[in-house]
């Protein structure tokens, strides 16, 4: 049995919200996924046992029976009798509770059902996002005086309907193609055929593309990830044009983002595996997603999966004012950790401090081991995030507490020297050398990562600063700025209008 539990807070008194939700036949007036609804046998909609028979905005018909309704606990429970999706034994409860502190309403929408083998996740998402969360948004809009969104103009119920399968035509789209490994001038604008999506694939129109230093390494050939005449670029956001056979959970018009190998993001249109995509919430715009996916997902797996940072931990972050560093600082602080960071200048120390690093150390002026000793009262830190490599590795080890964890996720200063691990028994330390691809290789991993990342982007816990925007055709200029260290924050490439 699978349970789905979603909840939100609505900024309106409980009686107001209950007035709308109590009518078992009223959901077609506010829920965007519902077409028309009627109660069978001409019963009032508050007769326990009554059946509502309704169409989905996307087509399809559902019958549900009211099992209980309570004006005392502001709740009702219903089950499915007939549906076009296999939600076996589906029973759902809507419950409101007053938030006395501020006169708002807590709204919980939960269910349990028995999914067919292998479809638990897809169906949970369908119910949790397309029905429950979409319902939350609709009620919020309704209370704000907005009318129900027309389902024709905004097909939100992507998995309720069968997604539009691609017509099979290839399309023409511009791309910055690598003519050879080398300087920025080796990227050239060319029109290319973009094939129709095959099984498991989707075709996207990019709206914003993230620029990362790894793109420079791909361009110069330092990393052998892209051979000419290939396309570089690791992350982008855009909308789905069409989907191939067997794609579940995405439909044309859906806004999505990705950050992953294989490279190929510096283009207008791209056909790629649907497994690599994350659906974007309305609150996150394309530019933010393109800027934040790669660094944000990196911070997620470093802080939650490579090592699980907890409240009260002390954490040392090297290059705290760097691209990934600022995400690590903000996120670790938000998890309740004490953050010590190394930076190269007073300016960067201030930047890191603004992003949650309580103890920035300018490593050229001060020994970070002293700060670690002072802050942790001699104990050492629980975890070190070290993307610097050769020049920091040994001292990172020294900074660790007993049973500490050294996470080496890069080597900007050169490769870490060979290690004799037997010496690590003096502190029982762990060392990890994580690789981005190994934490983002399945749809489930990407989803669990963005489930943590997106709420932080929405509520502002992770601040994203986009310092530069260049049109895609001027990707070479973007690279020049990046290599000349003239950029601040994130750099993105923009498209079209």
């Amino acid at each position, binding site marked *: 049995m699978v349970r789905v*539990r*979603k*909840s*939100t*807070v609505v900024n309106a008194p409980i009686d107001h919200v209950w007035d709308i939700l109590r009518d078992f036949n009223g959901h077609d007036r506010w829920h965007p996924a519902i077409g028309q609804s009627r109660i069978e046998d001409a019963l009032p909609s508050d007769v326990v046992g009554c059946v509502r028979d309704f169409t989905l905005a996307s087509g399809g018909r559902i019958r549900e029976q009211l099992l209980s309704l309570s004006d005392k606990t502001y709740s009702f429970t219903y089950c499915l009798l007939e549906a076009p999706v296999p939600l076996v034994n589906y029973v759902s409860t809507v419950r409101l*509770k*007053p*938030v*006395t*502190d*501020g006169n*708002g309403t*807590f709204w*919980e929408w939960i269910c349990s059902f028995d999914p067919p083998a292998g479809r638990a996740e897809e169906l949970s998402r369908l119910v949790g996002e397309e029905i429950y*969360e979409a319902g*939350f948004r609709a009620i919020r809009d309704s209370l704000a005086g907005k009318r129900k969104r027309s389902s024709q103009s905004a097909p939100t119920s992507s998995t309720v309907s069968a997604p539009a399968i691609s017509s099979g035509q290839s399309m023409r789209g511009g791309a910055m193609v690598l003519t050879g490994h080398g300087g920025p001038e080796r990227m050239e604008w060319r029109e290319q055929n973009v094939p129709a999506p095959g099984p498991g694939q989707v075709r996207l129109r990019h709206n914003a593309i993230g620029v990362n230093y790894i793109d420079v390494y791909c361009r110069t050939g330092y990393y052998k990830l892209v051979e000419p005449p290939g396309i570089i670029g690791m992350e982008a956001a855009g909308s789905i044009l069409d989907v191939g056979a067997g794609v579940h959970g995405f439909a044309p018009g859906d806004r999505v983002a990705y950050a992953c190998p294989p490279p190929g993001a510096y283009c207008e249109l791209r056909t790629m595996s649907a497994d690599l995509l994350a659906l974007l919430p309305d609150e996150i715009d394309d530019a933010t997603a393109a800027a934040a996916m790669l660094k944000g997902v990196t911070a997620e797996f470093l802080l939650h999966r490579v090592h699980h940072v907890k*409240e009260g931990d002390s954490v040392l972050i090297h290059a705290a004012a760097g691209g990934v560093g600022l995400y690590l600082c903000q996120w670790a602080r*938000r998890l*309740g950790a004490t953050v010590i960071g190394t930076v190269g200048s007073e300016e960067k120390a201030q930047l890191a401090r603004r992003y949650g690093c309580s103890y920035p150390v300018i490593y050229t002026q001060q020994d970070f081991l002293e700060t670690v000793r002072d802050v942790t009262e001699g104990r050492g830190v629980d975890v070190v995030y070290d993307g610097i490599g050769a020049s920091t590795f040994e001292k990172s080890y020294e900074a660790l507490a007993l049973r500490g964890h050294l996470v080496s996720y890069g080597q900007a200063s050169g490769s870490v020297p060979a290690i004799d691990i037997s010496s690590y028994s003096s502190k029982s330390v762990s060392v990890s050398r994580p690789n981005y691809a190994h934490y983002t290789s399945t749809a489930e991993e990407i989803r669990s990562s963005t489930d943590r990342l997106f*709420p932080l982007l*929405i*509520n502002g*816990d992770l601040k994203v600063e986009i310092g530069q925007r260049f049109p895609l055709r001027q990707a070479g200029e973007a690279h020049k700025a990046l290599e000349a260290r003239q950029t601040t924050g994130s750099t993105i490439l923009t498209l079209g209008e």
Partner: protein
Amino acid sequence: MVKVYTSSIIDAPAERVWSVIRDFNGLPNWHPAIAESRIEQNHPSDKIGCVRNFSLKDGGRIRECLLALSDYDLSCTYSILESPMGVTDYVATLKLTPVTDGDRSFAEWSAEFDCPPERERELADLVGQGVFQGGFDALKERFGGR
């Protein structure tokens, strides 16, 4: 029987808030009205039936018995054994529910008790606003900059 219900939204994930309030002996760590607390007979603070004996900053002493604790429901129920408030049959429950939208917490603190009729309003206000809302305000401040 007087019933008091206070609820609030705390801007931190439920498991984080729970990690602070779960400790039946931990009130002085987060509730501004509590000076110090100990568990009688040296019991662990998550042993059902244990008694916390704590003093208020204004000097009063209260003994409360842990009736139920659930890491599954994120809830804690307790009764008052002795207090200067003049209530009888006092049972209270503090419960968290995750708000999945935004990864926040919905916190509820409710109590039922008996007291002389002329003191109902005063005591309902003391419990609901002073104790419960006061605790929520401290939690909201603690997690405000999360």
